[in-house]
């Protein structure tokens, strides 16, 4: 039961305010050797809210946060909300062209970023006339910038200005975040989430994971990823501690931090668990503090479950499924993971999930159909894309309501547990990230000497799926696998760069001339 003092706040940033009032001196965040208390984070967020307001950023304005997982990124998220604005967290791997697209598509008023990301943000910001401010954390030498962004200033100096935060009108129906996601069209879409939806998701997740104040949650996934962002939101909602790592490039380092910080909960994706399960010399650390692990993005192979139990003997393992459009849809109660390793269980608390047939009928056990979700965590829609929104959010059974059509194929078993069958579209899931084949194909075809390209996902023991490209060259052109990968690296986030490139004379086509991918492998 919710304690009276823990009733959900009207807006998401109410969580930080509440934890800062209750636990001002508790270390809320451990990141890169630094520790910040709740009072420090709330103070910095308020200072940022004031600085943004002083630069003309107000209620409903979008602010792009383009940063690594860092203390500044955490402060930025809450500071943007404190200004009444909408946080657009962008993956730090994003390259200049795509960043410029995201700034333009969201109509962002401000950009918060970090000096070491200058090769991407400087050219992007320079061609974003809508930006009123660009605040950069870390040591930046403006003379070395290829182009000077509008409203350029130092992040720390802006916080030190002491501008008071604007009066906060905590409206649950206000937009809190746009989370960009890739679809089959290759055009990233901004998923609109309201404060009340994100609060509902935080309450639901904290309920089934039984998160409490004594938790120490480890976040290694990017805050730009809904799953990574919710590590922070839920930790701050319950007054726990967040240990934020830049990523999983150095697994040994992350394990060391995990043991040293006495981490209790860890959110991962199959690629991370595969890396952990494959490490030979994991011993020597005491992981008895770890009480739960969560997995999302794709099924956790059952062979890894056994190895994870050896490494984390006390941990419950939660298999989950979600989409950016609803944050989280379902989870498998951990006592079932051995008996039903392939299942993602039941709808999260507060939501309802069912499997629907072509005619909109609810299907029974064993029948395969589309997973539909009804509940308080659904997105408001896609930013500026009513047609795409209408395909995804459709009239529900209750009348006058909208429910989420996930697009993914599921079936129920005889005990009412959900099983993922297939994605309805051809989006590739690699390293837990969504890769749009179209976006990769567009990048490859833009390379001089390439005539056409087709991109598919192939099974990969570590990545889940690896991106594989089939490339047809122009007559006389000569490119190597490395050439294609290097060119892709200039245009795409690294997780989208094909791991395998096969050169072929021709691609199989359908009668209408479309590339037929079913024949490729």
């Amino acid at each position, binding site marked *: 039961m919710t304690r009276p003092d823990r009733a959900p706040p009207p807006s998401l940033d109410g969580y930080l305010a509440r934890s800062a009032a209750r636990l001002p001196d508790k270390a809320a965040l451990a990141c890169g050797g630094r520790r910040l208390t709740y009072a420090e984070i709330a103070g910095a967020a308020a200072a940022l809210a004031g600085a943004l307001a002083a630069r003309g950023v107000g209620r409903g304005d979008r602010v792009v946060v383009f940063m690594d997982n860092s203390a500044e990124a955490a402060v930025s998220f809450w500071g943007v909300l404190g200004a009444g604005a909408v946080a657009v967290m962008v993956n*730090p*791997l994003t390259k200049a062209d795509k960043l410029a697209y995201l700034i333009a598509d969201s109509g962002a008023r401000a950009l918060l970023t970090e000096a*070491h*990301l200058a*090769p*991407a943000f400087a050219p992007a910001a320079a061609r974003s006339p809508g930006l009123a401010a660009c605040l950069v954390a870390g040591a930046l030498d403006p003379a070395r910038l290829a182009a000077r962004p509008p409203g350029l200033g130092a992040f720390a100096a802006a916080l030190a200005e002491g501008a008071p935060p604007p009066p906060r009108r905590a409206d649950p129906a206000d937009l809190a975040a746009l989370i960009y996601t890739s679809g089959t069209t290759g055009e990233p879409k901004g998923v609109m989430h309201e404060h009340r939806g994100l609060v509902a998701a935080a309450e639901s997740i904290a309920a089934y994971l039984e998160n409490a104040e004594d938790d120490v949650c480890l976040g290694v996934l990017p805050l730009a990823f809904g799953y990574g962002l919710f590590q922070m939101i839920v930790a701050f909602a319950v007054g726990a501690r967040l240990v934020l790592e*830049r*990523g*999983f*490039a*150095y*697994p*040994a*380092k992350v394990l*060391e931090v995990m043991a040293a910080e006495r981490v209790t909960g860890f959110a991962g994706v199959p690629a991370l668990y595969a*890396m952990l399960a494959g*490490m*030979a*010399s*994991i011993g020597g650390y005491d992981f008895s503090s770890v009480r739960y692990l969560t997995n999302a993005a794709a099924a956790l192979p059952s062979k890894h479950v056994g190895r994870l139990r050896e490494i984390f003997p006390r941990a419950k393992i939660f298999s989950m499924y979600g989409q950016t459009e609803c944050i989280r849809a379902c989870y498998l109660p951990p006592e079932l993971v051995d008996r039903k390793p392939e299942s993602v269980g039941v709808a999260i608390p507060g939501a309802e999930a069912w499997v629907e047939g072509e005619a909109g009928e609810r299907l029974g056990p064993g029948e395969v159909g589309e997973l539909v979700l009804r509940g308080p965590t659904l997105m408001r829609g896609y930013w500026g894309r009513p047609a795409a929104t209408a395909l995804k959010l459709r009239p529900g059974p209750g009348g006058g309501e909208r429910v989420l059509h996930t697009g993914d194929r599921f079936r129920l078993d005889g005990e009412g547990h959900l099983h993922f069958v297939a994605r309805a579209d051809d989006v590739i899931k690699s*390293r837990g990230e969504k890769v749009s084949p179209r976006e990769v194909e567009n990048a490859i075809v833009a390379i001089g000497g390439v005539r056409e390209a087709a991109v598919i996902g192939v099974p990969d023991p570590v*990545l889940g799926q690896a991106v594989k490209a089939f490339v047809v060259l122009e007559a006389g052109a000569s490119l190597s696998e*490395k050439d294609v990968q*290097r060119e892709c*690296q*200039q245009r795409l986030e*690294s*997780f989208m760069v094909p*791991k395998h490139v096969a050169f072929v004379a021709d691609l199989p086509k359908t009668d209408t001339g479309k590339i037929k991918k079913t024949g490729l492998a």
Partner: protein
Amino acid sequence: MTTAIRDEVRTFITTNFYVPDAGALADDASLLDLGVVDSTGVLELVGFLEDKYGFKVDDAELVPDNLDSIARIVGFVERKRA
């Protein structure tokens, strides 16, 4: 720092990963900060070091202190071969 190893490592990094301005890549610059390598990049780098210099990298050695700049990689190779 051994010049030959430094040149070999630098060549591997600048030809296998996307480095906007290879000439400006300082020996002590963090490869992670610059976005030059990520988690799969680290594994590729380790594969290169093992093949080229004939030693085995332990999982516990996969730490930024050993691998996060050209200078650190060269130091790591020298220690491993000592």
